[in-house]
């Protein structure tokens, strides 16, 4: 049975500043959704709120995967339910080898009931699997022995996110500007990688400003965010149009959301405390 990720009337605040003001979204396994919108419209906030970042406070609404109330779970529990966030800015964890980190992750995701200290997945098969996933993504096997994201270039970090996606095989993947800051070769590698991974078992939400990622991964749905709401939903053609013509026409069609967006942008300028991730 195909699973469904259901977001209903989601309101999210960061440090008491409302960012999302009622987001509705449904993603089924096998579907690709593009999420677009100007800076500060709330795209990354949605991704972080779905993943369960403690700074993003849910003030109203609900998130479910099938019958499971995701809001009841911490980020680890959500990941074990098959939710994956590819970070826009992956963190560095000094001293922790990629292979060791991923072995813990894979063990937990595949055996969601696993407690710390219980067995990890067997080394041999894990190594083999890791090596072949790395090969598919054109990664040097030496990467497995490096410390997670330490000294990685922007492209290497993003590739590392895709490698984790490949190993963890989530039901729902959220890609937060995975294509930003990459040269065209790197975008191609990431796009092809995602294309190979996203099949009928994976629902994907691609947050992007660009079109390249969408060329390889044609969205079934395109959503436009403005002022903390999804104001329009269309198909791949909408993504193309937005990319070509920008958001002016969207603002015209949704004057109230555009005004709220403008106010939010202004208060951000006045109050530097609002995190840039929003």
């Amino acid at each position, binding site marked *: 049975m195909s699973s469904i990720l259901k977001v209903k009337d989601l309101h999210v605040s960061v440090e008491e500043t409302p960012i999302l003001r009622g987001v509705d979204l449904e993603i089924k396994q096998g579907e690709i959704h593009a999420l677009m919108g100007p800076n500060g419209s709330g795209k990354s906030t949605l991704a972080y709120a779905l993943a369960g*970042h403690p700074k993003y406070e849910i003030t109203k609404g609900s998130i479910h995967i099938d019958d499971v109330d995701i809001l009841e779970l911490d980020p*680890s529990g959500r990941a074990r339910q098959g939710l994956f966030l590819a970070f826009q800015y992956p*963190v560095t*964890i*000094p001293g922790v080898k990629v292979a060791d980190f991923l072995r813990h*992750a894979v063990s937990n995701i595949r055996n969601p009931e696993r407690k710390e*200290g219980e067995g990890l997945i067997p080394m041999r098969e894990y190594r083999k699997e890791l090596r072949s996933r790395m090969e598919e993504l054109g990664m040097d096997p030496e990467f497995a022995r490096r410390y997670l994201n330490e000294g990685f270039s922007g492209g290497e970090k993003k590739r590392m996110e895709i490698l984790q996606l490949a190993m963890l095989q989530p039901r729902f993947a959220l890609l937060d500007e995975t294509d930003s800051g990459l040269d065209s070769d790197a975008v191609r590698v990431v796009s092809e990688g995602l294309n190979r991974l996203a099949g009928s078992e994976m629902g994907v939400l691609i947050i992007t400003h660009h079109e390249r990622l969408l060329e390889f991964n044609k969205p079934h749905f395109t959503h436009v965010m403005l002022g903390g709401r999804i104001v329009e939903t269309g198909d791949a053609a909408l993504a193309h149009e937005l990319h070509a013509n920008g958001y002016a026409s969207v603002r015209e069609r949704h004057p109230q959301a555009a005004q709220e967006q403008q106010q939010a942008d202004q208060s951000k300028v006045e109050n530097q405390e609002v995190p840039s991730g929003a």
Partner: protein
Amino acid sequence: MVTATSDSYTREAFETFLAGRDEPDWMTDQRRQAFEAYRGLLETPLDLEEYKRVDARTFRPSRYHLQEKSADETGVDTLMQHRAEYAGQVTHVDGHTKNVSLDLEMAEKGVLFGDLATMLRDHEDKLRPYFMTRAVLPDADRFSAWHAAFWTGGAVLYVPRNVALDRPLHSLIALQTDGAADFSHTLVILEDGAEATLLEETASANNDATGMHVGAVELLVGRNARLRYVQLQNWNHKVYHFAHQCGRVGGNGSLQWTVGGLGSRLAHIHQDVMLDERGAEAQVNGVTFTIERQVLSYYTKQAHNAEDTTSDLLYKEVLRDDSRCIWRGMIRVEPEAQKTDGYQRSDALMLSSTCRADSIPGLEIEADDVRCTHGATGGRVDEEQLFYCMCRGLSRFEAMHVIVEGFFQQVFDRIPTELVRETLSQAVERKLGIGD
């Protein structure tokens, strides 16, 4: 005999102690001098710079007593004892040496390894010139003097010229009886061109026995000699630990010194490395992990006494609960020590809001052509790192564990001995409350 009702370390107690030991005159004389120094130094305030951050008011010396003979060993849970093929092993319990072994081949090459008191008597010519004359001096302060007067037990390792030990040696210092005092002394002498690895650990036989360690470590590394020395301090949380530790390195010699600080209620360690001749180098690695109300204090000094010498110190400290860790480091460069390359760094990672880390680096440079760098960092576990790990299915606790391991990894990466890396890593796991 020393009893619980009297002060264990009075003149009278000292005379009784001496009478109970069958020692050569020179040794007795040395003890008497140290005892006089001790009585005098008790009246002298401790060096404020070294001790002002160490609150030892709960420490009552008279609660801890020399043990007349060691209790039967009930088995001490150690981390390294049975882990590897050793070229030799020695065990001390409550200040008395038991179970000495040394590979026959090594013994035939002239290697000495075993009980300090016996060895000092039997090999006076070789060992006496080094014993508390060059590295740890009896009159350094009240703890060194106290130790020099009452030392009992401890290990000696002597490696003759150009002899290399291919396997490590192991020394275990254990406290077993409640209220026991341990005055063990470690003396390592590598003659020119010799090579050895000594792994030493201190441990308690159980979690409840109170105890005290007033110890000394002397490492004398000859020209072109290479010593790797590890001391894993793993007492239970009721032991008070005071130690003077000093390594001296000759021309082109090298000393790699790794310190693991896990146990004890309160510990203060004075650790010196001295680079005495051209080309001498020392690497000092520290891994400490304090929890609950533990207090660990390190006063480290890297003394560059000659040209072209190198020292590299890295301490990594993890703290939890209400614990405290103090590191005060100093690089001292003498006027003649041009071309010195000195480095010191201490990083503290705090896992609670109530722990406290003090890291105070320092430089005293008298030469004008040197490269000396120092640094200290302190911080909490990064919430963004935790979030990232959790997004990959790690529980918060597991994420914390992974981050702590990673934090120590930078030190582990400097340690070539796999056994040591593994042992430290396992000790960290235990401390985090997981693993076996």
